[in-house]
């Protein structure tokens, strides 16, 4: 684990500030990402946990500027080494994507072209970033494959991606992503499609990439176990917002937001004695575009108060690099003041 004290005054590698992403739909604009701020310090693995529709994947795509046609970043900034990626020209952004940020996806086959061998794709990527003779690039490619735990790299170089298993493809994707030694690796559910034994190998590989190259990793998942396994810091996303940010130990020891608490409680555990019924979170995950007023979690929250229906909670700082958005954390007076404020606004609107 990295030294947490050292990172406090250090400027983070990636700093996302107040990012909002909107999609045009038949039902009008839908906020997939709603005012998200998150830092990825150098050499740290930051996890984003959320369910489907929480906006975690769209956040990654916004950072990479790979949003679908109908999506648009409406506000905020994405600072990589202090440079705002959102202000770059397309050509500059393409260079950033290979050199400084790389991304791995849930479906490894998505990133690999079935018409070319693994070797051809690796060699091409390596030479694009560092021009060199094909022979040298191929040697480099074989080394890379060996470093991601592939037993016979020279054989695999001549295989087509569709001949490889899911775990093997994901290794090749990681090798491809690491080939240009990026400073930041964005991994969007990279192990969700894999079996647990293979998942364990891939997670080890990512940890090794961090330790060997000092890469930072933004790791997106829906699995709390994976978070516990490799992350240093976690952000919990719900309905397009980050509801809690915390160092990983403290998140598991003392979750601040009711959603995080409920998620942790409702997991069927390996170590626990059997409890029935398992604690549940009532209701359904809100669909994008159907976010309720006030706090997005209030319809499912066991502790919802009247203020939760009216006003979105402010970010409450619990400790350095630890905060949550929940009215329960605010003082009585702040809540009262806020509810007066919304009442006043409500009158104005009518």
């Amino acid at each position: 684990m990295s030294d947490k004290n050292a990172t406090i005054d250090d400027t983070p590698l990636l700093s996302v500030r107040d990012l909002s992403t909107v999609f045009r739909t038949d039902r009008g604009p839908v906020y997939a990402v709603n005012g998200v701020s998150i830092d990825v310090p150098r050499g740290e693995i930051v996890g984003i946990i959320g369910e489907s529709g929480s906006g975690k994947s769209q956040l990654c795509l916004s950072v990479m500027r790979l949003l679908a046609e109908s999506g648009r970043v409406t506000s905020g900034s994405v600072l990589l080494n202090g440079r705002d990626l959102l202000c770059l020209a397309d050509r500059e952004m393409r260079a950033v994507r290979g050199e400084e940020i790389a991304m791995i996806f849930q479906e490894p086959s998505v990133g690999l072209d079935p018409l070319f061998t693994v070797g051809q794709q690796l060699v091409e990527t390596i030479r694009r970033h560092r021009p060199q003779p094909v022979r040298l690039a191929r040697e480099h490619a074989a080394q890379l494959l060996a470093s991601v735990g592939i037993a016979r790299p020279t054989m695999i170089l001549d295989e087509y991606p569709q001949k490889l298993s899911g775990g093997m493809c994901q290794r090749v994707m990681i090798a491809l992503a690491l080939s240009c030694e990026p400073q930041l690796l964005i991994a969007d559910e990279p192990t969700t499609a894999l079996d647990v034994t293979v998942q364990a190998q891939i997670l080890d590989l990512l940890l090794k990439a961090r330790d060997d190259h000092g890469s930072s990793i933004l790791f997106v998942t829906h699995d709390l176990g994976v978070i516990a396994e490799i992350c240093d810091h976690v952000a919990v996303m719900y309905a397009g917002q980050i509801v809690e940010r915390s160092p990983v130990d403290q998140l598991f020891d003392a979750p601040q937001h009711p959603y995080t608490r409920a998620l942790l409680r409702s997991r069927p555990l390996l170590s626990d004695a059997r409890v029935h019924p398992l604690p549940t979170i009532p209701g359904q995950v809100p669909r994008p575009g159907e976010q309720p007023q006030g706090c997005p979690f209030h319809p499912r929250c066991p502790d919802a108060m009247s203020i939760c229906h009216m006003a979105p909670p402010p970010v409450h700082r619990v400790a350095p690099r630890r905060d949550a958005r929940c009215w329960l954390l605010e003082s009585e007076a702040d809540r009262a003041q806020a509810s007066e404020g919304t009442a006043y606004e409500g009158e104005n609107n009518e």
Partner: protein
Amino acid sequence: MGPMNTHVPHTTEPHGAQHYLLATRYNRSALVAHLVLAGIVCAALLAPLVRGPALAQRLSVSLDPPALFSASSQSGALLGTDSLGRDLGARLLLATRVSLAVGGLAVAVACVVGTVLGLLCGYLMGWFDNLVMRVVDALLSLPFVVLAIAIVAAIGPGLVNVAMVLGLTGWITFAKLVRGEVLRIRQQPFVEAARCVGCSHLRILFLHIAPHVLGIVLVGITLTFGQMIIAEATLSFLGLGIPPPTPTLGGILAGAQETFFAAWWLVAFPGVILMAIVLSVNVVGDWLRDYFDPHVPIPVVRRER
């Protein structure tokens, strides 16, 4: 209201034909296509009222320009006359009726035969599928006209016979479309779920799979309808179609080609009607496909802007 309450049932939602009419009202192109098609069908239904003098030959006024556009018209025929001096408007009315009947009948035959065979091929696979697909290959390797000549020569010309010939060549499109769709649908988990529940093959095929084929069949109908009317014209032109003096759209078009430079109306008016039929059938077909697809939301109230 929170999002948890969004699935409240709309008990006041209109049903059946009323729902269809309401839904159609708010789709402008579908509405226009429905009206055009309804107009053409009504005209075709009223065509038998045109009799006697309007259809008589009057060689004195042959190739008379349409009275609608030309002051020099002698016959007074609104859409002009043909080379035998017959009123084009009256003939077009009758021709539309005949063409719609031939096209409709041919499509109906093709659709029923093709859909049933396609369903069975896709579901049963194996030897039955092989047999039918080899027949399809054989039919596709023969030129349509040669095939039509052979069949018409065997069973003789006439409206019903022509429709049969067209239908028995047109089923191929349906069989291929439907078979492909069934092969796709049978892979879906709900088909296995139906087996698991204990459904018989007939039930699975006709209750679970066939409704999903509806969309592609509608597309097939709209695609083939125009083709059938044009194919009938080809046959008529070759003298294998519906024998004169019964007018058909294709027949009038075919006959007009000798006098095309002298009498544009003989090409323009049947052409416009043919186009209007094919186009509106296509639009209505697209609309029906969307309407019956539960995934496509159909608003029955005007969307707020």
